[in-house]
């Protein structure tokens, strides 16, 4: 009985936890917009910059240019070489991360309040005046090539490559933004300079900051940091046309455990049914939760250590993806269970009890995501990119709770396509 009482209380505490995140919308003197959460109790700041475009911007034949460019930002500027830059950064105890994704590139900085100006002046050099000198280009090119070579013999990477080629047609998503050994080998300094100009532009920028800084200080900081970036970047890509043939494709590879990726069409992030679909996935294969796939494939049959599914609303394609790994002699059984569960959920839907459990879990787990300055900064930038209002952090759980059994089961019928569920299996699977 006490468990039931505890459940009734959770929605209340979830709301309280999120209300503590007080988001300010800030505009710098020159007009750069940002979201800020002031958290003065620890003397540092987490700053997150995100530029739309990412690896999708690579021109034909230049696959990997954006990724290599981002890897070179910290490898020397007009004023200092790679080692001088790293020493200056470490002496300030600042850290900068430069990451490439298919849809965007990100800059994540962390710096002490006491040396904010020096830390930002250094970051400005990396963003605005990287030197892309030949020695650094060759060194980082070799690192990227090493990583590409490793991915040739990694079953997960092989599966992901094969899957991209099957599903995405001629869209950039069909190949990896790291590029191929061939494309990366031929990239020139001019290609890198062009990638920099294409990717880091003000017309596609989203900013958030969390930590020991005021709105006014942040505005001045952003103007100093970003003023010299170009106004506009390269045109963004078109929507992808996806193909799901519903087959099970095997890529032979000598390894004891087969790795399987599976997917069908997903749903756009701004679809009115998105929360229903999100809860549906939580029940089917969501993480941190006794999902149907986890129960059937792992708990009841011991066929895998891990199985999960995810709605993946990318900028130019929507997928519903899952993955599982089982010994070569057992993967066929695992796949068969997944196909059965997929078909069962499509026709029978979920129960009121499952819906309630998923809602309780999701609404309770949501505030736990806000557990550090850096995590909050990433959440805030993601919200802006999805065009959500600041009030979303308090209204989000209401939207989860508003999903009805009728709605979620309608979405199960309409969205789930067991016949389109396409598998890529890498390994030496028996019986496939």
């Amino acid at each position, binding site marked *: 009985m006490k*468990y039931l009482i505890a459940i009734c209380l959770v929605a209340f505490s979830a709301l309280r936890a999120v209300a503590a995140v007080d988001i300010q919308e800030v505009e710098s003197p020159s007009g750069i917009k940002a979201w800020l959460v002031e958290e003065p109790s620890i003397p540092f700041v987490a700053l997150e910059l995100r530029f739309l475009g990412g690896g999708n911007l690579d021109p034909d034949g230049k696959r990997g240019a954006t990724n290599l460019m981002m890897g070179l930002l910290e490898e020397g500027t007009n004023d200092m070489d790679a080692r001088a830059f790293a020493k200056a950064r470490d002496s300030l105890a600042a850290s900068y991360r430069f990451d490439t994704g298919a849809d965007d590139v990100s800059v994540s900085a962390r710096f002490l309040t006491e040396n904010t100006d020096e830390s930002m002046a250094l970051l400005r050099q990396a963003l605005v005046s990287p030197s892309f000198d030949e020695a650094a280009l060759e060194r980082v090119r070799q690192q990227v090539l090493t990583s590409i070579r490793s991915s040739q013999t990694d079953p997960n990477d092989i599966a992901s490559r094969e899957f991209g080629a099957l599903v995405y047609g001629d869209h950039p998503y069909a190949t990896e933004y790291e590029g191929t050994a061939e494309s990366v080998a031929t990239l020139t300094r001019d290609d890198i300079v062009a990638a920099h100009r294409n990717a880091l532009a003000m017309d596609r920028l989203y900013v958030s900051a969390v930590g020991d800084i005021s709105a006014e200080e942040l505005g001045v900081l952003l103007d100093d940091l970003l003023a010299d970036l170009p106004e506009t970047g390269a045109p963004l890509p078109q929507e992808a046309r996806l193909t799901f043939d519903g087959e099970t494709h095997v890529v032979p590879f000598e390894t004891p455990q087969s790795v399987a990726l599976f997917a069908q069409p997903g749903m756009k992030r701004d679809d009115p049914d998105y929360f229903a679909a999100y809860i549906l996935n939580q029940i089917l294969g969501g993480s941190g939760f006794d999902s149907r796939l986890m129960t059937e494939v792992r708990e009841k049959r*011991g066929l895998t250590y891990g199985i999960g599914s995810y709605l993946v609303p990318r900028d130019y394609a929507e997928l519903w993806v899952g993955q599982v790994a089982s010994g070569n002699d057992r993967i066929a059984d695992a796949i068969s269970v997944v196909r059965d569960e997929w078909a069962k959920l499509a026709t029978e839907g979920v129960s009121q009890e499952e819906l309630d459990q998923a809602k309780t879990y999701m609404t309770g787990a949501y505030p736990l995501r806000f557990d550090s300055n850096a995590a909050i900064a990433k959440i805030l930038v993601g919200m802006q990119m999805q065009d959500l209002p600041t009030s979303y952090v308090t209204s989000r759980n209401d939207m989860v709770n508003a999903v009805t059994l009728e709605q979620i089961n309608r979405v199960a019928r309409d969205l789930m396509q067991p016949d389109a569920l396409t598998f890529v299996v890498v390994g030496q699977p028996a019986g496939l």
Partner: protein
Amino acid sequence: MRAILTPFSLTLALAASTALAQSEDVTTFTLENGMDVVVIEDHRSQALTNMVWYRVGAADEPAGTSGIAHFLEHLMFKGTDDMAAGEFSATVAANGGTDNAFTSQDYTAYYQNVAADRLDLMLEMEADRMVDLRMTDQEVGTERDVILEERNMRVENSPQALFSEQSDAALYMNHPYGIPVIGWRQEMEELSQEDALSFYKEYYAPNNAILVVAGDVNPEDVRAMAEEHFGPIAPNPDLGPRVRPQEPPQLAERRLKFSDPRISQPYLLRSYLAPERNAGDQREAAALTLLSRLLGGNSTTSYLATKLQFDTQTAVYSGTSYAGMSLDKTKFTFVLVPADGVSLEEAEAAMDQAIADFIAEGPAPEDLERIKTQFRASEIYAMDSTSSRANRYGAALAIGLTVEDVQQWTPTVLDITAEEIVDAAKSVLDRRRSVTGYITSGMDADTGTEG
């Protein structure tokens, strides 16, 4: 804390005050049955991390049952006399929380991230499964398949992980750290319910456990709840000191060759047996921590990167690692990925020359100062993650360190001299106490490696 003159002396002042704040918000006490409790207050949000650590890990397993500590960790999510199989995690989820567990050579820990007002329920359930675990043979059999698939995923599908097991087995000639935490496959296949329960009965007791609660809580409330739920559980009077077989004098360097067609990039791995952090005695471990950061802790500025990646194009990657958080002797490891056209032998010779040069020259003062500055700042950054702080205290107490050792760690590191670093390097980097591995695809392309 000793004053050190730096261009950023303000950092020092801040770190000092932060360290003080950090000790003020940590409270420790011990229940009458011997269970240690650590409370870390962080009132920035209304969440908390609740952890129960057991001072038992894979290195404490009976011979021939490798993997039982980790297998038991999985079985702890089955039922008890009061709860059905799977109900523990389902209840955490129904309260909007997430839960999991992990096993190392030295400890096993269970945790939940949950809203702060759910602590009482979490403690009640953890106390329940500390002594009242129940399971069926069928559950045990199915879960054994799960851990075998976990081994498939983590080890069999990764040639790097396969070699790492071989290397540890060669480094530790007598100590159980040479046996993998997940277990050797042929022993995992035979693990039984009896193996799990006998391990459980011996080691899962309040006097072998540490409760760590971090987040929006106050120590008095935690004390009251801990006394209510864990207080009634009797200690195990038969628990002895944690004494494992130790290493004999290591007199012969070991060299391994490993090939696997899944290796796309030949590399070299060298591990040396090394001292660990001990209660009240952390200086050599602190010196080794700095040594690792100086030699290979940064892909651009560390000594090996400078010599092997910038001054010469010998390697595309070089790095070192040292983990002082260990109950018994730990390891100091080098990894080196040669550049195109450089053989493993050539790369190894260049690495050994660089190590010898470093020992002869000693660390450059500006390099040491820069790394210490980062250490000071890491104290500030560490305050941002409540769960990391809970982990830090829990792991330390589980390997016999004290709260004071945790709080003295950064001041100790900052106090280490260049001379102590060189002495530690001379003492530890002795190839008679090392294993060197050449990892290749076994194909002709890796010229110079197959002799």
